[in-house]
């Protein structure tokens, strides 16, 4: 796995060739290229010096190839344009001549000299300095080979919501094996709880269940529900994963969903799938379309996993699927890439005391309202309020609840609330035509395909009253909820009586997975959402090589965005898996064991967790695959033990001397 260093010659013996390019008149018009070549002829280390009109042309390259062979050059300098243009060209030419590409130096005398200066003498002098510095560097360059490592072409997806499902399907369809881990009894995530989806109002379950079925039947997807990822070790292409299988106490291969167990179970508990608005038994199926189709026994609420205590479910199970003796087990898997799609939570209503979400049953959050709207929900899709089952004649919707609040809550915009609130208000007006829907908002953000039209329709056709102002307080007086707000457009302080209030709670990081993320050492932003490797150019990759991001774990987004990101992450995994082996730039920063004092400063400098302390030997060690070669550690190392390959401190000093020393 280490870089192979060949032909390590002492710098005194090295033979360097210099090729100065005219670039037509681009360089030669300002820089006296002949003088540069002439001056450098006798410079220490330079064995050959020439100039030519276009070095990048075929004859120019041929000249390089021939000269390397003829003069037995160990390194070359091409004084020409910026290395971003032709570094690869000349490296390839050198390679053809049998020279290691890391022995090529490009001296930029065009963009950073001839094109920006007019004084010929000064520009020529500067060109000489530039060339000298590269000679100084080249004398100490090592021949390097890219670091190579094999790739295990299997992907782990953490999270079985819509993002995880999409990523799993895409990667599996690329032809790679996928392990999908979901901690809940069924896949489906938050999306399966939703009623209709904006702006098309198609039913969320109807569009998601086919995907869920496809995942469960895909020959290359190993579906592990009611499992949790315990740890991931290793590095890109070569991860080892430990997965904890939680005991379901029901053998999913035997359960035929007859439902007899549920009927006899004496334990009634709050139903999470319905956001606590309904009840389920301790042995349950989260929802009818759950995948895998099996009952799960919730040990926390079961009277006791022994026939002595209850045992009713076991007695009625014809298939003998119930086994109280199931134990937690750990499964180990090896994968090459990990897609993190761990989703989000809603901000707790408790955090905003003045809205009374914890105190009043009829102050609910958006997801609870989704369940009320859902045809499969606790009210069968009839809008009834939780406290007494009455149909509310007035609903107030409060946007930006806990979002865009830098002071006490979350400073960011949760992005989807504007649209789902419009949808909520519209659905309510459709189902309760004489009901009054009032929305308090600060700004309405509808930047999506057909979003604004939907929002306009909510107001114009469904006659929802939008009031621009933030609600200060919600309290109960008698049977009514009183909402204190303001209309900043008219400057009126307003009070609205409501039968029910729906709070568009902020989307926040999923608390349940934070420990896992910490263990995986996946970088998060200050809000606990996953951090991308680059905000513009690498939006679906984690900073940690081999980890990819999908869905709301990365930040608030709507369904199409989550799906798009999942597909993008899958494509990136495909990129990785398409490589025969991983190769990595070898100009990294290794550790010189003899100099390293084990102080650990370099470890704190590394943004990629590529460095760690070998406690036994008391020295820092580097994972060459993870190191990106920024050199921050090299600058910080107090002992000089961390030296960047082909940009060592010694090389930098020599370059400085060459450029500045008269």
């Amino acid at each position, binding site marked *: 796995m280490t870089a192979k260093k060949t032909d390590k010659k002492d710098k005194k013996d090295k033979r360097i060739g210099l090729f100065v390019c005219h670039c037509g008149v681009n360089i030669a018009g300002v820089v006296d290229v002949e003088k540069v070549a002439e001056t450098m002829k006798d410079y220490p280390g330079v064995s050959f010096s020439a100039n030519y009109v276009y070095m990048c042309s075929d004859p120019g390259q041929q000249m390089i190839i021939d000269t390397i062979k003829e003069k037995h050059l160990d390194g070359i300098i091409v004084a020409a344009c*910026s*290395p*971003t243009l032709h570094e690869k060209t000349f490296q390839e030419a050198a390679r053809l001549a049998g020279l290691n590409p890391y022995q090529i130096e490009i001296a*930029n005398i*065009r*963009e*950073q*000299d001839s*094109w*920006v*200066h*007019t*004084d010929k003498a*000064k*520009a020529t002098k*500067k060109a000489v*300095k*530039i060339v000298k*510095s590269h000679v100084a560097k080249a004398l100490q360059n090592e021949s390097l080979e890219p670091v190579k490592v094999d790739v295990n072409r299997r992907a782990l997806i953490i999270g079985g919501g819509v993002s995880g499902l999409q990523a799993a399907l895409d990667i599996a369809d690329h032809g790679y094996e996928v392990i999908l881990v979901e901690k809940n009894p069924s896949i489906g995530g938050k999306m399966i709880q939703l009623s209709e989806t904006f702006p098309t109002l198609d039913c969320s379950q109807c569009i998601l269940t086919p995907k869920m079925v496809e995942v469960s039947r895909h020959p290359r997807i190993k579906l592990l529900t009611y499992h949790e990822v315990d740890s991931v070790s290793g590095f890109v292409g070569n991860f080892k994963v430990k997965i904890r299988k939680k005991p379901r106490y029901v053998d999913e291969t035997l359960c035929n969903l007859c439902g007899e167990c549920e009927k006899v179970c004496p334990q009634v508990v709050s139903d999470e799938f319905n956001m606590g608005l309904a009840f389920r038994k301790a042995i349950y199926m989260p929802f009818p379309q759950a995948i895998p189709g099996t009952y799960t026994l919730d040990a926390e609420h079961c009277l006791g996993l022994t026939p002595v205590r209850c045992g009713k479910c076991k007695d009625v199970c014809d298939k003998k699927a119930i086994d109280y003796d199931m134990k937690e087990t750990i499964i180990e898997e090896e994968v090459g890439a990990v897609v993190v799609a761990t989703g989000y939570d809603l901000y707790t209503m408790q955090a905003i005391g003045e809205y009374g979400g914890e105190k009043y049953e009829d102050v609910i959050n958006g997801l609870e309202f989704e369940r009320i709207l859902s045809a499969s929900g606790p009210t069968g899709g009839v809008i009834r309020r939780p406290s007494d089952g009455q149909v509310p004649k007035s609903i107030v919707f409060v946007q930006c609840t806990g979002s865009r609040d830098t002071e006490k809550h979350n400073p960011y915009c949760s992005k989807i609330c504007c649209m789902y609130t419009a949808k909520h208000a519209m659905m309510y007006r459709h189902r309760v035509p004489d009901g009054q829907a009032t929305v308090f908002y600060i700004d309405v953000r509808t930047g999506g395909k057909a979003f604004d039209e939907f929002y306009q329709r909510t107001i114009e056709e469904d006659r929802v009253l939008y009031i621009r102002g933030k609600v200060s307080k919600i309290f109960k007086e008698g049977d009514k909820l009183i909402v204190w707000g303001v209309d900043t457009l008219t400057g009126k302080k307003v009070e609205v009586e409501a039968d029910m209030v729906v709070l568009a709670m902020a989307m926040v990081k999923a608390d349940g997975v934070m420990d896992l993320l910490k263990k995986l050492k996946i970088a998060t932003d200050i809000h606990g959402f996953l951090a991308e490797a*680059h*905000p513009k150019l690498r939006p679906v990759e984690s*900073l940690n090589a081999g980890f990819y991001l999908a869905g709301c774990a990365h930040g608030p987004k709507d369904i199409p965005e989550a799906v798009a990101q999942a597909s993008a992450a899958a494509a990136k995994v495909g990129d990785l898996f398409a490589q025969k082996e991983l190769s990595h730039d070898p*100009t990294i920063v290794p550790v010189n064991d003899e100099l390293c004092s084990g102080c650990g400063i370099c470890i704190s*400098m590394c*943004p990629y967790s590529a460095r760690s302390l070998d406690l036994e030997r008391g020295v820092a060690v580097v994972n060459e695959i993870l190191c*990106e*070669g*920024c*050199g*921050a550690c*090299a*600058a*910080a190392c107090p002992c000089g033990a961390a030296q*960047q390959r082909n*940009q060592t*401190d010694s090389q*930098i*000093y020599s*370059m*400085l*001397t060459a*450029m*500045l*020393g*008269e």
Partner: protein
Amino acid sequence: MTMFEPQIMCFLCKWCTSAAADAAGTSRMHYAPNNVNLRVMCSSRIDPQHILYAFKEGADGVFIGGCHPGDCHYVEGNYKTLRRVTLFKKILQDLGIDPKRLRLEWISAAEGKKYAETMDEFASQIQALGPLQLKEKALAREVVKDE
């Protein structure tokens, strides 16, 4: 008497400021030819020792160019640079080298113009400060005597 021509040593990060220097060239923006450039992968590769060494070797001014905060190719290397440079300016002061001789700027790949203007501006600033005096250089030499 000839005008004092300052020598300016520029450390440029590959991703932003060196690209900006190329962009200035592509747009044929002219600036004073007092600088020589050393390209590093990231501004955080620059050790304060390098800066001191440049002064010792005859630089009258040292310039460091990095990516704008938040845009670092290596996540936060530029913040590390900022911390080091801020601290190092204090040390320069103690060494008797005017901290104005060291300048850190964030110049993105798109800001060729800013690069060219900064080069001119810095060159005339250093010109106004005059050459780094031998006495100062001697001090610097003492600090890096074992190099």
